């Protein structure tokens, strides 16, 4: 079990900001989220005290700029739209913490803060999502990114079944050499587990996201 948990915690260091599924859980729920993209790897553990917000601890590693950020990460569910066949959500997320150099980066430490919005709309077979974030890590640099996703489920699974989604994510990082990239991915859902596997076709980087809800 310890090896399994250690493996989960190390996953972000192998890979790296995407649209996490349900960044606010049910009251009393804990969630572990690992995300990886073409620049960063991150791990977030959050607790949901009430259905409208969560609070967590997040660590992220910027592999390109060689610094890490450890932060307190609140997420506020600003609005949820319901109907029988769909759900839509608007979240505001952010964090504040310390950035520190890694892998020989001698820039020391600096206060870092970030914030952005996330939105999603989902039926049992269609998904659309958007996420933005602006990070200011002081002398380590700053970064704005946003990403949009579209997806569909080839079949509708019931409770406890394996749910499969096929998605395409387009992300935009204005300051990068490859400002716009595309990542097709597969999302697999089963019970408390969510796994996303994809590949960034523009910069040839894998995507691996994992969520476990306690």
């Amino acid at each position, binding site marked *: 079990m310890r090896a399994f948990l250690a493996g989960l915690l190390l996953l972000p260091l192998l890979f790296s900001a995407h649209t996490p*599924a*349900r960044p*606010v*859980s*049910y*009251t*009393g*729920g804990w969630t572990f989220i690992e995300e990886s993209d073409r620049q960063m790897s991150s791990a977030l553990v959050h607790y949901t*005290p*009430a*259905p*409208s*917000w969560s*609070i967590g601890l997040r660590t992220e590693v910027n592999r390109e700029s060689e610094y890490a950020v450890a932060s307190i990460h*609140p997420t*506020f*569910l*600003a*609005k*949820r*739209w*319901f*109907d*029988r*066949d*769909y*759900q839509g959500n608007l979240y*505001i*997320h*952010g*964090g*504040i913490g310390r950035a520190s150099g890694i892998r020989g980066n001698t820039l020391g430490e600096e206060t870092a*803060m*970030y*914030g*952005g919005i996330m939105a999603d709309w*989902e*039926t*049992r077979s269609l998904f659309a999502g958007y996420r933005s974030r*602006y*990070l*200011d890590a002081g002398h380590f640099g*700053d970064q704005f990114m946003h990403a949009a996703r579209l997806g569909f489920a080839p079949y*509708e*699974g*019931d*409770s*406890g*079944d394996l*749910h499969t989604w096929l998605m395409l994510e387009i992300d935009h990082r204005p300051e990068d050499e490859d400002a716009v990239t595309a990542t097709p991915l597969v999302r697999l*859902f*089963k*019970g*408390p587990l*969510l796994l996303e596997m994809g590949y960034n076709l523009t910069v040839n980087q894998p995507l691996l996201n994992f969520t476990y*809800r306690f």
Partner: protein
Amino acid sequence: MNSKKLFASALLSFLLSQTLAAQEHDHHSHAGSGATHQDHLTHSDHADHHNDEGDAGADTSNSTHPVMTHTDAISDALAEGGEPIVADVLGVVCDFCALAMNKIFGQREEIAAVYVDLDTKALNLVLIPGATLSDETIAELAVQAGYRVAAVRRGEQALGSAT
């Protein structure tokens, strides 16, 4: 402080203030997820007494109401004599939604079996014999899970055998 730092600071301050406000709101009203407590109770009251009108346009006419889904646990609990309850839930579209409902309702001692049917968007409950669980409590628990109850049916109506 440059404009980017100012933007980040303002956004973070807004987020924290909204979070604290939400905490206060949740503490006092037990409502969340963008749904107001008043909306919720009003809806539940309708479901309780009239069983005729869903929120956000949900179709809750008797002819289209889903009936109880029989899993092994549900069937066993019914065989024990527990009261069947079926609640239409809005926004339950994924397995994480079902998980949230199972977690919240599964920890209640009044409930012998719980199953969320994503096909019918219905929360299926069977109480332990002799236990009671009000419509208002069911609606409140759904809010704690992050969702909203549109209608609640019990007994023969829940089983689909009402005449």
